[in-house]
């Protein structure tokens, strides 16, 4: 999972010069100054008690409520959501529960994200059921986890459609070109 691109805000408790993990330099870290780091680094510092993680801006109750409302009111297309919202939310719920404040807040946000996943999932299924030929399908704003779920099935079934539709074209083209396939060796 490319967590390097998932930046979180971290309020550091440590005083340290810039850190240089594999793929970049982050820092310098000063106490109580928020700084943007990749998710894996934020979680690893959090485990050592060296920082507080701030919630991503889209993960507040109000934002999530707004996105959910929009999803429900527009069944034809998907709302823009962070590409890795499933992964980020799962990691934060399992490893950093304390950042959500009290338990009820945590439950509310968890429920809203689950609801969002269900609404989007049913939209995806409805859309997939309507496919009836080897067409190009446009699926905007699909998150990473959702596209992983449908990738294999959708790709294979589109291949199947393609095979079935091109079945006629081969011998029809040959006929038009004047040669008869049944006579070729």
């Amino acid at each position: 999972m490319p967590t390097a691109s998932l930046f979180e805000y971290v309020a550091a408790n440590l005083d340290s010069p810039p850190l240089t993990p594999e793929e970049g330099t982050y820092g310098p870290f000063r106490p109580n100054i928020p700084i943007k780091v990749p998710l894996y680094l934020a979680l690893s510092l959090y485990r050592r008690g060296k920082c507080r993680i701030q919630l991503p801006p889209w993960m507040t109750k109000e934002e999530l409520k707004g996105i959910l409302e929009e999803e429900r009111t527009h069944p034809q297309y998907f709302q823009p959501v962070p590409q890795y919202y499933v992964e980020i939310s799962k990691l934060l719920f399992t490893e950093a529960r304390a950042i959500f404040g009290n338990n009820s807040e945590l439950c509310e946000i968890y429920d809203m994200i689950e609801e969002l996943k269900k609404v989007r999932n049913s939209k995806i299924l409805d859309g997939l059921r309507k496919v009836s030929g080897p067409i190009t399908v446009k699926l905007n704003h699909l998150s990473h986890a959702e596209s992983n779920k449908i990738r294999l099935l959708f790709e294979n079934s589109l291949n199947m459609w393609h095979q079935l539709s091109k079945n006629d074209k081969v011998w029809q083209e040959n006929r038009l070109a004047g040669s008869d396939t049944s006579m070729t060796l």
Partner: protein
Amino acid sequence: MADYWSLEGALAEETVVLACYNFGASGVGHILAPGLTLADVPAGNKVDTPLWLAVALTRRGMTTISPPEIYQERHRRKLNAGAECCNFKGRSPYFYDVGNKCNEFMQDPSLSAFLSHTYATRYRELVSKGLNPISGEDTLELQSKLSVEELAIFEAGRDSVARVQLWARGARPRSSSISAHPSRKRTLNARGC
């Protein structure tokens, strides 16, 4: 779907079709049709032949293929009425591959339209049950009716959903059954044997 290198394509060609031998065939009577008393196949006779052989002979103009019963008019009407209920696994596990192959020679647009229509009807069930990770009675029932090509699509969908769920639960995916076993190479002992 069938291409030259696909295993399913090769297995699909084992399907038996009725081929009319325009010029007969000498010496292969007993092999093609064990019940035949003659050693040679007389000209104009229809014999059950595996698809791979029938296709090769038809390309040389030596036989004429007639497609299996499931593509004939009677079954077409039945499938057009309700394709979801038909059991392809038992009757014609390589329904689409064999149909496509036969159509190369029959050159019948209505056959390929029929194949597409059948797939379109069955596809809706595939999507509904294929992306649902819960395995219920109706899922098992559907699985027992699918042709080999449809089953591959169905399993691919269920597998990807199951993996996403596994990750969400925090479990590790099971490693493949073909794992490296400790090497049992014989080592040379002191005597060199």
